[in-house]
């Protein structure tokens, strides 16, 4: 299960709408081992493509150094599909390299750059095996972990 705050999820969706028809991509980092996404980091799609995404290699190094310094890990790795459903493609599965991450996919095929409906789904991708998981959206002003 992916628990994510509404504001973080909204930020991911806004990025996907803005970059349509190219794929948008990024990370939501969080404290190591906590499985809580907290820090939204939109990345440039170096491929600038409607069918492929790749973090720029220098950006990737800077991202991982920064997360190391902050004792964070990539809790969520997100990207958009702009013409197909929000389900991992063959290349998504082949290149998935963070076994602890939630792979969050957003499809903008209906909404494009507009305010229409988006499809959002989350997966684990480990050793070529895809497992879908529920997405639980928490209220933006009641972060996970706070006592009720």
């Amino acid at each position, binding site marked *: 299960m992916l628990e994510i705050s509404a504001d973080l999820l909204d930020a991911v969706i806004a990025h996907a709408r803005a970059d349509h028809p190219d794929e948008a*991509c990024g*990370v939501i980092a969080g404290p190591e081992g906590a499985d809580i996404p907290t820090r939204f980091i939109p*990345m440039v799609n170096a*491929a600038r493509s409607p*069918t*492929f*995404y*790749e*973090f720029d*290699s*220098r950006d*990737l*190094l800077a991202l*991982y150094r920064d997360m190391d310094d902050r004792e964070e*890990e990539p809790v969520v*790795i997100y*990207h958009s599909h702009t013409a197909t459903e929000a389900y*991992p*493609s*063959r*290349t*998504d599965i082949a*290149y*998935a*390299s*963070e*076994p*602890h991450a939630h792979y969050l996919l957003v499809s903008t095929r209906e909404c494009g750059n507009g305010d229409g409906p988006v499809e959002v789904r989350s997966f684990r991708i480990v050793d070529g095996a895809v497992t879908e998981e529920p997405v639980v959206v928490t209220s933006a002003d009641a972060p996970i972990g706070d006592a009720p």
Partner: protein
Amino acid sequence: MAIEVRIPTILRPYTDGAKVVEGNGATLAALIDDLDSRHVGLRDRLVEDGALRRFVNVYLNDEDVRFLGGIDTALSDGDSVTILPAVAGG
């Protein structure tokens, strides 16, 4: 003297979970051979047909070795090598 090598999460099963290991080699290829002698299987995850795999990024200090000499990039004692899988897909 040695070269520090930072290992990404997905390859830590080869290093008994270690985030950082040390190795030796005058070139990146020699360093990878040296690492593979202690962390068997690591080379195959990094190298294909004598070149670095397309979706594995290797950095010497702050520079992607693709912009240096690729797998033949020369190394010196005290260098730091970072391995990061590409974050990519379709």
